[in-house]
């Protein structure tokens, strides 16, 4: 793998550790970042790196920082403690029962460093690509593609005519109501009833007095006006009325003069 393009000039070499420490701990992004930089200073492929040597480097780095009374963040100290444990485990005779073994821990650390290094290198190569606005350029003011909605109004001839019908109705309602309603007026009913009373001599139902060809609203109207007409004629003493009870058929016949209604 290529050497990463990122600069590691802040990496402390053995000779100028003090200078490096001036920059240190502020410039690292955490213990792993510091470890990777120290590993780079071994100038070998991360696969061949000596974890033991790396641990030494880290521990002495932290120790010097503390000697200089630099503030060392907690996570660096946690890493230092862990590495100190790893170091002693690696140096002691191997205990086959220990799980995980120090070798496994060292391998994990190595794998993590490799992955971080790989991504660091990838980031550098990504940023070095021909980037829009720096290396390649787009049209500054493209015309742009636009979608324009065309409003299209929709209406049928029926919509138009029924709308006009409603306008007409609104403006001339009275005329229509009078001319169109089929009614039998009270006068007409009186006239008709008087004529019919003369013909029918016996009791007859009110409905029988209506012309047979009246249907629907006209018949309703005729019944209503004939009823009122019958009451009027009874008031005048010209007909007799009888009804067996409420809502029973109403019978009427010409009044017998001088005798009260039954």
């Amino acid at each position, binding site marked *: 793998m290529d050497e990463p393009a990122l600069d590691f000039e802040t990496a402390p070499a053995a000779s100028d550790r003090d200078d490096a420490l001036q920059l240190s701990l502020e410039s690292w992004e955490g213990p792993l970042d510091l470890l990777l930089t120290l590993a780079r200073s071994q100038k070998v492929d991360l696969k061949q790196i000596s974890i033991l040597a790396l641990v030494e480097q880290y521990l002495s780095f932290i120790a010097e920082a503390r000697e200089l009374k630099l503030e060392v963040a907690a996570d660096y100290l946690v890493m230092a403690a862990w590495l100190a444990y790893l170091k002693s485990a690696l140096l002691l005779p191997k205990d086959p029962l220990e799980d995980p073994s120090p070798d496994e821990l060292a391998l994990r650390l190595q794998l993590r460093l490799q992955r971080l290094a790989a991504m660091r290198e990838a980031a550098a190569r990504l940023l070095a690509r021909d980037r829009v606005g720096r290396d390649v350029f787009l049209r*500054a003011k493209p015309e742009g593609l636009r979608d324009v909605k065309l409003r299209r*109004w929709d209406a049928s001839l029926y919509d138009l005519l029924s709308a006009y019908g409603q306008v007409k109705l609104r*403006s001339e309602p009275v005329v229509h109501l009078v001319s169109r309603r089929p009614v039998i007026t009270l006068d007409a009913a009186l006239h008709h009833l008087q004529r019919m009373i003369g013909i029918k001599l016996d009791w007859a139902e009110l409905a029988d007095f209506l012309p047979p060809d009246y249907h629907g609203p006209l018949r309703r109207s005729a019944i209503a006006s004939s009823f009122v007409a019958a009451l009027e004629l009874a008031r005048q003493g010209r007909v007799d009325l009888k009804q067996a009870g409420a809502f029973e058929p109403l019978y009427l016949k010409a009044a017998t003069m001088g005798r009260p209604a039954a």
Partner: protein
Amino acid sequence: MNPIDDRERAIEAMLFASDEPLDPRQVVARLGDDGSIGEVRAFIQAIAARHAGSGIELVERGGHWHFQTPADLAHLLRRERDDPRKLSRAAAEVLAIVAYHEPVSRAEIEAIRGVQTSKGTLDVLMEAEWIAPAGRREVPGRPLIYKTTDAFLQHFGLGSRKDLPGIDDLRAAGLLDPVDLAFDEAMGELDLVKDGEEA
């Protein structure tokens, strides 16, 4: 294809990426070498010729050059889509009144409808190109009067305004039935049913 001269390429890229049209003088300045304006002009002509007849053209506007898309392809850049909408009841009424009474002013429309008519309603009908102003009524205030258009006849399938049904036709079609008469008829039908049951 012959390789394009490096300076021609550079000028082409400049004209493409520039946020404003460039004149040959500006191009020379940006090239930053000692090329002459005459040379740059020749390169610009070559670039314009190379793009002639394509979907990109290099055009001159007052001595400044810029790329644009050809005018005959403008319809692709500004795509129009239909957005059908139902005409409102109020607009249908106004349209009908104009059709039956034209030419007619807004005040006359309002007198017939018995309600105020918003300006927007007339605008919608004019946008639909179904009505159009037809001059002014020579009365005080000289109000604008409106009439229907050929597009109106076309849309509603009418040969002429004479094809609009008359009042009697509308009545026969039931479009002028008052609401209460319709009610009476409905009641009459109910009575008949009752009579039938009793019989």
